[in-house]
């Protein structure tokens, strides 16, 4: 008898408790209508950035392609007349990309960066292969002041050896007389 009464009570109680959910906030995110928040460091669509002077940051070192676990990056090095290196083509196959961010970690010039944009849907698979003109953006991305050629010892036209930041001029070994 007691078991029956307590059973009836517990059933009624759970019905009441479920009924109070009528006024509860719903967990559903109304995604396409209401954009959802993604953190600034979210790893989404990959971009190629430019340095503060507006030049391409990428020096076509191939480290990103080497670091990529699924091998979705391919590029070809070329050299400008002023001595700067740049990728002749730069291709990311987003149907393979797993957005691990290893390319960003490997990049010595902060050129390749992942952005919080995740809306990459396409109707044709081939449209997911992004060429350099799709990847290249006009800004510096996350690193506003970084300019690889101003930091490295690499000599290019207009910036001889020893004139980079934190660099001393090269020592003339022949003048080192006792």
């Amino acid at each position: 008898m007691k078991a029956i009464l307590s059973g009836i009570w517990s059933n009624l109680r759970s019905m009441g408790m479920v009924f109070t959910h009528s006024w509860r906030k719903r967990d559903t995110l109304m995604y396409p209508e209401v954009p959802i928040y993604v953190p600034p460091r979210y790893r989404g669509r990959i971009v190629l950035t430019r340095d503060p002077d507006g030049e391409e940051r990428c020096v076509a070192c191939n480290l990103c392609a080497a670091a990529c676990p699924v091998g979705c990056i391919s590029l070809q090095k070329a050299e400008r007349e002023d001595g700067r290196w740049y990728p002749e083509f730069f291709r990311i196959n987003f149907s393979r990309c797993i957005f691990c961010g290893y390319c960003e970690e490997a990049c010595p010039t902060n050129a390749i960066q992942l952005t919080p944009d995740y809306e990459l849907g396409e109707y044709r698979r081939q449209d997911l292969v992004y060429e350099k003109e799709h990847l290249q953006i006009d800004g510096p991305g996350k690193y506003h002041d970084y300019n690889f050629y101003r930091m490295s010892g690499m000599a290019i036209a207009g910036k001889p050896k020893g004139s980079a930041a934190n660099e001393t001029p090269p020592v003339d070994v022949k003048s080192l007389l006792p």
Partner: protein
Amino acid sequence: MNAILEFLTAPAFVAILVEVGKGLVILFGMVIVAALLIWIERRLLGLWQDRYGPNRVGPFGSLQVVADMIKIFFKEDWIPPFVDKPTFILAPMIAMGTLMLAFMIIPITPTWGVAPDLSIGVLFFFAIAGLEVYAVMLGGWSSNSKYSLLGGLRSAAQMVSYEVFMGLALMGVVMQTGSFALSDIVAAQKDVWFIVPQFFGFCTFALASIAVVHRHPFDLPEAEQELAAGYHTEYSGMKFGMFMVAEYVGVVLVSALLVTLFFGGWQGPVLPPIVWFGLKTSIFVIIFILLRAALPRPRYDQVMGAGWKFCLPLAVINMLVTGAVVLSNP
């Protein structure tokens, strides 16, 4: 020619036409309400599970039913080669037909209702509920599939055992009224609803009615997790749709019956009868959906045990006490 015209305009014939028209309105109204219930149930389940449910088609998703209907009408109506064809086709027709037929005894308002004065009203409902078992049983048996058969078996046992005390639970109401006709039962509740003197009758009848339309938590015949879909596993297209709509027609029917038998039917102050009837019925429909949202499904032996060991004695005691009281106050 004149004779035909005279026949067609005779008051008796016009009265029959009007009655048929009313019947058709009730029939279609009920089918539409039952179809809409599919959407209402999904929305309410969503509300109680902190989500939205279908909200894309039309305002608040209310045209979801239309989309579902279009889809289900154009689906392939596949009859598997191993089924017993005539019975397989017959079963969904019985399911929908019997339940819709049962709606004719309900007095919706004092003037609306197909046959509320039927002198065997309550008995007619029991007969219909008995026939409705055939739909599930034939559906499960003719499908020639183990899940369907198990579902059919379960539902046959469940419905038969719950119909036993469903009848007994209502006998209190019938004794107090002195009539099986539902219009008389409604009229007898002018002063006090039967929920007050017949509380245990109401409890047992409500439980039995859930079991008879096999809604949650007594939906063992179609327990998705154990039996795929129970007796309608092999059905597709509109035949499945008929089982589906029949389930919701059953919900409306049982809610309307509960209102008529225990909550004064269309009676109520100020508002017109149709509003009262609709309001009370929809509250019960919502409670049915709340039951589905809140309660887990009991084990099969627990269902049978609750029926035979608890509800049947309660209904019998209720009947005996009511009988004694009615006899001692002639």
